[in-house]
């Protein structure tokens, strides 16, 4: 099988798996959890491109998620715009802000982007919470309209699940294209050695800025999907802890791996649901599991599971 054929088969399998899950799941709660996994995967996917491929960290990515959500909330609920018109604006707003934040910080080498985004995330959170008249302040923003395409209402659990996973699949395809392109090669080169990348004529700063803006745009897209799904947003969803959670998804899943982003997002979405049973001890168990995964699989879940599989196969062959 040629690699491209293999890839085609993989996508066909992924599509049918999604369709199958969508048809088989009858419990609305399951569909809801799966939808959140999809949204979180989108977040992790964009951040993974920045962290795993460009080697930069953003500690304020929840802000872009929030900008996407609040922009569409304000444009559709307050100004009555169609969501399909507010979508490009929400994405553009996040991209523009990312450009402005990234421009000065990415000029400096090192972890300045991390520091810059950390501060920026805090500021964005304060704006969401304190700008009462526009964002609804601490009590949140209510009445975000559902999505519809012509007569097809997307607000039902199953339809929205399909929408989110469809968008995710397209996003994965786009990311794959980027990674396999000349740009992706340059990104991997930067990750390996920024100096050597510069020596062959890679404009490292421009490239990192582009990836940062792209990942912010993807986060805003996730924010858009989130806002129109839950119809109510509040600043707490976009706080510093959410930024940390996004970074954790990428690290736990495995950096520089698309499947890692999805695995990490799934684990971080499902764990709190499973751990409700521990009530008071929930956060302790949560922390222990995270530590355990990182100790046993320091390269993340994707690499860890692949290693387990390879070892099992070797033992089988012997």
């Amino acid at each position, binding site marked *: 099988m040629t690699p491209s054929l293999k890839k085609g088969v993989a996508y066909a399998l992924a599509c049918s798996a999604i369709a199958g899950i969508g048809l088989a799941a009858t419990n609305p709660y399951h569909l809801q959890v799966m939808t959140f996994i999809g949204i979180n995967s989108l977040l992790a996917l964009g951040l993974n491109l920045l962290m795993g491929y460009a080697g930069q960290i953003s500690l304020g990515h929840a802000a872009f998620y929030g900008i996407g959500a609040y922009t569409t909330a304000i444009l559709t609920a307050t100004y009555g715009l169609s969501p399909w018109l507010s979508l490009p604006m929400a994405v553009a707003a996040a991209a523009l802000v990312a450009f402005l934040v990234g421009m000065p910080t990415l000029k400096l080498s090192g972890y300045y982007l991390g520091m810059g985004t950390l501060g920026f995330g805090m500021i964005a959170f304060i704006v969401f919470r304190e700008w009462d008249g526009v964002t609804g302040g601490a009590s949140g923003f209510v009445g975000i309209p559902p999505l519809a395409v012509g007569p097809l209402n997307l607000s039902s659990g199953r339809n929205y699940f399909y929408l989110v996973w469809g968008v995710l699949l397209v996003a994965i395809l786009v990311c794959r294209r980027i990674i396999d392109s*000349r740009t992706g*090669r*340059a990104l*991997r*080169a930067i990750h*390996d*050695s920024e*100096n*050597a*990348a*510069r*020596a*062959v*004529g*890679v*404009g490292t700063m421009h490239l990192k800025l582009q990836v940062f803006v792209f990942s912010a745009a993807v986060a805003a897209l996730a924010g858009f999907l989130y806002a129109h799904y839950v119809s109510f947003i509040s600043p707490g969803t976009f706080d510093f802890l959410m930024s940390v959670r996004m970074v954790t998804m990428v690290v736990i899943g495995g950096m520089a791996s698309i499947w890692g982003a999805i695995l990490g997002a799934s684990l971080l979405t499902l764990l709190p649901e499973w751990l409700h049973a521990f009530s008071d001890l929930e956060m302790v168990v949560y922390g222990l599991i995270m530590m355990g995964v990182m100790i046993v699989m320091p390269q993340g879940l994707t690499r860890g599971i692949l290693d387990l599989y390879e070892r099992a196969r070797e033992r089988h062959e012997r």
Partner: protein
Amino acid sequence: MLQVKNLRCYYGRIMAIKGVSISVRRGELITLIGANGSGKTTLLTAICGLLPAWKGDISFEAESLKGMDPPAIVRRGISLVPEGRQVFAPMTVLDNLRLGAYTRYRRREHREIEQDIAQITELFPILGQRADQPAGTLSGGEQQMLAIGRALMARPRLLALDEPSMGLAPLMVEKILDTLVRLKADGLTILLVEQNAQAALKIADRGYVLETGKVVLQGDAGDLLSDVEVKRAYLGKDYEEFYDGRG
């Protein structure tokens, strides 16, 4: 072709290059020799735009390179084979070569790039055999070939090499230097930085000797080579050792 005039380079407040002037004419193979820490790498990184703070003047084909970033300089036709090779170890040999042509993809030269890859694997057959292997799995000499091949992928008019013989067995050094002679015969202009003075002077047209950030000797490679012989006869030491002793 390349003119460096009264160049001064700084690391913070320390001046590492203290007013160096060199020139390279089209088609020449010029070598820059000097002991460890004499400023050879600093000079090359300044020429290639990798060192932001320098004073004086560097011009390439009558155009000043002041304020240009590395991509702009690569596009103008200067390629660097960096010190210590610096191949992208986790990436395949082929991807390393493609990265060398990074600045050209923008100009949509896909077909020509594939042809150039074929040419380079002809020059270094081993790179063709190892095309899909991670560059980190190559031997030191093969990595050096890859680094040269990668630099050639940008179709430079001036190839700058920073100590390509470093850490290589004598036979491999000879092979690499032979390649440079071949490239020169094909019309490429070369600026070769070396610690291995003898080997470099044997293939060069002219040479400059750098010591603690200054040019202390320059001239015909042949003359310099005999100068080296004189110093060796006089001191009973190799030229490099002589400088190492002082450096």
